[in-house]
């Protein structure tokens, strides 16, 4: 904005505020600022007047008060005596949990569907197109409700597992699908069990090292070691061996029907599952399109050039197509992740206690602090969104193709 053409002999005139490029933009910005400030002042004064009329005031003290309600899924210690703030954090963690689960599942579904849609099998690609169109064009809320209905109205209730001749039985004798959720066995670690786990983790690291080594060997000596089977072997064989050698130190805590419900094992709440799958399958359809577009964006010429060099189809995929397609796929993928996080607020429709359910739901209700809680709620979501999109920008800058 250095605009200093020939200032000599000119003195400031009022009309310059409108006609001079130097001052004009200040004038406009000033006006805009005043308008916005006036709008806020107006809203604020309305707020004050309304609050005064209703005898209320803005205060966040309620966050420290005991919440008084119970939450069915808590990842940190929580009782009805804990504070509202803690309840919000429980909700936040639940939001993150379902979002992360849904993101992972949606990515898997999306990638599979997207790749299959490009398959040269006519039937499969049409089937996938059907899946994509069907899920993309129906509101996610309807999908959530449909899946929740499957969970509650179609799955058997725990009482169906009761009796000598039950209507329903557990899958493998370990997993129970009920209309309250899915009960799966939980691993129980005896002291030595941790050793097995340690060995397992170590072998994962080892397998990564092995792959690195294989690559280095190829680069240094031109020897191509097999990777797929050795990797699998390295990951599983030692852990299994150790498991048996140490005398099966990990046992399963199989859920058992007792009282009203199954107890023991891990419970995946019906509302969590409904929300998780609905989000995953809905967003998966979008991701599929995205993946398809990404792969198609790598021109046929690239594949042909690689083929002409003698590379085999799987290598072409790994070395040429995927690295390029990922650059196209990832940015929209991340905005789909963002959408999942935002759509997870629909938890409220199935009674999953996420951030909207606790802070924006029960806390709001029980305290009546609408303005405070909703403001806080928005800030929480905004923080999540900004974090995700910040990461996205970092990634985009890192992988941008060099152009001249």
């Amino acid at each position: 904005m250095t605009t200093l053409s020939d200032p000599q002999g000119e003195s400031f005139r009022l009309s310059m505020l409108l006609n001079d490029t130097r001052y004009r933009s200040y004038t406009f910005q000033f006006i805009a600022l005043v308008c916005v400030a006036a709008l806020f002042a107006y809203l604020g004064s309305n707020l004050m007047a309304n609050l005064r009329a209703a005898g209320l005031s803005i205060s966040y003290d309620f966050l420290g008060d005991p919440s008084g309600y119970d939450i069915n899924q808590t990842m940190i210690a929580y009782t009805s005596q804990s504070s509202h703030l803690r309840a919000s954090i429980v909700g936040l963690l639940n939001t993150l949990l379902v979002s992360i689960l849904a993101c992972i599942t949606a990515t898997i579904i999306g990638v599979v569907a997207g790749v299959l849609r490009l398959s040269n099998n006519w039937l499969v690609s049409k089937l996938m197109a059907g899946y994509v169109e069907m899920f993309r064009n129906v509101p996610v809320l309807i999908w959530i409700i449909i899946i929740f209905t499957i969970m509650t109205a179609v799955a058997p209730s725990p009482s169906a597992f009761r009796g000598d001749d039950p209507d329903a039985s557990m899958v493998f004798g370990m997993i129970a699908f009920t209309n309250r959720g899915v009960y799966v066995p939980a691993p129980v670690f005896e002291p030595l069990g941790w050793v097995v786990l340690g060995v397992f983790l170590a072998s994962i690291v080892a397998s990564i090292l092995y792959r690195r080594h294989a690559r280095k060997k190829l680069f240094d000596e031109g020897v191509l070691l097999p990777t797929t089977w050795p990797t699998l072997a390295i990951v599983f064989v030692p852990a299994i061996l150790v498991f048996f050698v140490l005398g099966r130190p990990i046992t399963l805590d199989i859920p058992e029907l007792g009282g009203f419900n199954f107890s023991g094992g891990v419970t995946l709440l019906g509302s969590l599952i409904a929300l998780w799958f609905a989000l995953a399958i809905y967003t998966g359809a979008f991701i599929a399109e995205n993946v398809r577009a990404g792969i198609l964006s790598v021109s046929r010429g690239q594949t042909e050039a690689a083929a002409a060099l003698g590379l085999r189809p799987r290598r072409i995929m790994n070395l040429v197509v995927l690295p390029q397609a990922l650059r196209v796929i990832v940015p929209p993928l991340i905005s789909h992740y963002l959408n999942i996080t935002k759509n997870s607020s629909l938890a409220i429709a199935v009674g999953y206690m996420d951030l909207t359910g606790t802070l924006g739901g029960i806390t709001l209700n029980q305290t009546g602090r609408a303005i405070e809680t909703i403001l806080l709620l928005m800030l929480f979501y905004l923080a999540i969104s900004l974090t995700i999109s910040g990461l996205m920008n970092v990634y985009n800058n890192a992988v941008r193709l060099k152009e001249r």
Partner: protein
Amino acid sequence: MADTAVETPSPAKLEVSDEVAIQITNMNKWYGTFHVLRDIDLTVHRGERIVIAGPSGSGKSTLIRCINALEEHQRGRIEVDGTVLSSDIKNIDTIRSEVGMVFQHFNLFPHLTILENCTLAPIWVRKIPKHEAEKTAMHFLEKVKIPEQADKYPGQLSGGQQQRVAIARSLCMRPRIMLFDEPTSALDPEMIKEVLDTMVELAEEGMTMICVTHEMGFARQVANRVIFMDQGQIVEQNEPEEFFNNPKNPRTQLFLSQILGH
């Protein structure tokens, strides 16, 4: 366009061996019901440099893509360097690593540096250790006169430079036969010269080459045979001198009058 190429009118006298490099017998190909290649018979000897010309849609690209197994043919037989092209993956791999191909649109891998573009196939297909592959790559990059660009990305080079990298990339596989599909038609006039110079040099070293091009100057200078295709068939073939000065087939005459006309 013809005038941008090198202007020496006499075909380079290069020795051609008796050995057969490519033998195509009675080859036919259809796209759906469309008969693209009809009864193609062609024998290419080691060291021959063949230019294929012909109107658009006459099947030139399809023909050389069949040689590389980028397209499958439905009838007839293609034998490259003693290997018969069948749907056997082994054979296809053998042939592809013997035959280098340069495309009209370069098709460099934009996510890899120039050097990585050149070493990718040698490392993964030929299993050559990386540093050796890099040495070879630098050698060929020097040959195409752009060793200093080795660490740049394709997007940072001009079209002519990119096409030269594409040639170097093929050469790094040390192919015995090179196929060129209109390697210069996507380039600006100045850049065409850079690329043609590189190709002339290759020809002079005795590489077996099949080149689809309309650069008649190039054809005159290096080809020892020009093949004219129309409607999926080889219509005429001859030595460049004869071909240009004395085309026999009326279709060829018409075509030559058009492209040499302006």
